[in-house]
């Protein structure tokens, strides 16, 4: 799903239940066989997940492009490989550009080529029908964990980017030198300000970035300023 989906508001009690399910995980199933969609729907609903089913890749893309507000929570895609109109591998290619959601491919036949192509293109797993429920649930759980971690990483990055934007030019210069291992005195000599002022900038920058220790600060500077 887009990196920052618009959060959906809880209005009714059923919204509340759905939000709870979504918090556990939202599973999007795409398959051209309605019976399979129903069966997977039963399974994931029973397991306490939110499950959305789509009968074709274009149907899924249409809904995706509407960018509907969503309840927060991890998400994964479960997609059949052989479908009319657009097959699973083609959908994977189209999604690859702007999509981080883990993709699990399922196939009716053990096509080794398809499996290799799909896995190379970044699919989380490739399952052969008929799929053992235990195995399916395990893969889905793994996919949701991956997505949850991904969402956390993205949130953290977004948060830090916002904090870094509040730094002044001077604070930034001081931080860069701190990360390089210079002492406060060296920095003061370097950019021709009082050592006390260096300490002040350093203090303020760490407060703005919300870090308490030097190693933490160094890691963020390494990651974002350089």
């Amino acid at each position, binding site marked *: 799903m887009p990196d920052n989906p618009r959060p959906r508001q809880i209005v009714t009690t059923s919204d509340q239940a759905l939000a709870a399910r979504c918090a556990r995980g939202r599973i999007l199933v795409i398959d051209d*066989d309605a019976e399979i969609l129903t069966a997977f729907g039963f399974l994931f609903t029973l397991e306490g997940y939110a499950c959305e089913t789509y009968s074709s890749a274009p149907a899924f893309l249409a809904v995706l492009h509407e960018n509907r507000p969503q309840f927060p929570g991890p998400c994964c895609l479960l997609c059949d490989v052989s479908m009319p109109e657009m097959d699973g591998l083609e959908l994977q290619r189209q999604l690859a550009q702007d999509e981080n959601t883990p993709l699990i491919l399922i196939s009716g036949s*053990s096509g080794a080529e398809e499996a290799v192509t799909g896995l190379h293109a970044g699919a989380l797993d490739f399952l052969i029908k008929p799929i*053992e429920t235990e195995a399916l649930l395990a893969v889905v759980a793994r996919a949701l964990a991956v997505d949850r971690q991904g969402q956390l990483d993205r949130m953290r990055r977004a948060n830090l980017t916002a904090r870094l934007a509040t730094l002044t030019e001077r604070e930034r210069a001081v931080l860069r030198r701190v990360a390089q291992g210079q002492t406060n005195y060296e920095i003061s000599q370097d950019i021709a300000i009082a050592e006390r002022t260096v300490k002040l900038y350093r203090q303020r920058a760490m407060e703005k970035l919300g870090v308490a220790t030097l190693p933490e600060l160094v890691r963020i500077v390494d990651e974002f300023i350089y």
Partner: protein
Amino acid sequence: MIFDARTGFLSIGLLNLIIAVALWGVLSRQRANQPLTGLAFWCGGGLFVGVSTILFALRGVVPELLSFTAANVLMFVALAMRTQSLRLELGEPESYPRLLLGMLAFTVVYECLRQFTVDNQLPFHFAVLMFGFMSLRVVGWAWRLGRRQGSLGAFWIAGAYALLAITYVWRLSSVALGLVETTILTREINAFFLIFAALISVIFTNIGYLGIALEQSIRDKLAAAAAQARAEENQRLSEQLTQLDRQRCLGTMSASLGHELNQPLTAILTNAQTALRSLPRTPSDAAAPTRDMLDRIVHNTQRASQIIERIRGFIRPRTTQCEPLAFDQLVPEVVKLIAAEARAQRVTLILEPNAPPLRVMGDPIQLSQILINVLRNAIEALATVERRDIRIGLSDAGGRAILRVQDTGPGLTPETRARVGEPFFTTKATGLGMGLSLSQTIAEQHGGTLTITNAADGGALVELSLPALPVDAG
């Protein structure tokens, strides 16, 4: 001299006539399916030679028009006909107008010479010259025939006519030199030699011709045999192609069938397993039967899926999953699977008790498939009879595990017995004819055999023999 030329020529003439008629009698029947023109020309030529020779012999007895003109013309015509006969064999016949024109020209020239000259010298020279020339033509064509068809008979003909041609040349030159008279009805060595040459030629030319005809018929028979062999080969090839086509068709069919069947199987499996998960975690007495039934659904769905996978494996050969397995336990399991089907057809499955422990190396699914095929066939075979029993027995025969399935059905007809197990051979209106062929392939892949015979006390007897593993303590 002790011989009489007149008698000699008369005999030669008669011999020619007899041989001509006999040759026709023999060869016209044998060559019933071929054009007889060549043979007719040859035998006709023989008849004319015969008549001509008799007329020569009767000089002084019959009018000169017969003994001179007719005799010479007939001799010329006979040589022309024999040439034509050989050319027909070669497939390069002379055009008939030219042939007739040649005969007419000879007749006219000879008659004119005879009418307008006083002595017999000029017509004699002309006629003998022409005979010699015509004989050489026969030699030429016979030689070509011999070379072309590798026919020994044609060389005999060429030789005989060469002898005649030499005789004519010798006679011509001896008359020209005034050594002898033109008349041949003498008692001299000259006439004797001519008669001798005629005798040799009549015998050898006709034997030669007979040889050509026989060689021809042998060649025809060989050609016919070759043609038939080709036709049979074509037939066999086309059958193989049809079979390959059907196999390919089946391959495609089963690939798509596998995919199509996997979809509903996936839905069934997921639904059943979901239902299982929705049951209370602690199995209460109330839920136990449901759980059991759902377990069966799951198990059978998995089996169905494995069978599909195996069938596709046959089309796209893959290594089988070999593992040591207890054959004596596998068989009752499979029998249980088919029991409902048997009951529906009022067939009693009798599993002989006290089966010895048998271990074999194999793929349980594929071996089950054999037994299911065999049992299904037996159940179907029993549809037409009153007593419907199938006996299933296991035994250990010196390192081999033997499974015997015997039914009380009508058994196999001789025709069925000859072809049973061939791919796509079926006695069922709706069958594909793959069942037994597939089963035999599986058995062979396991180093075993699957045979079908009629039991001594009626009914079909299927015997599966597999190499057994030693039954150890484990």
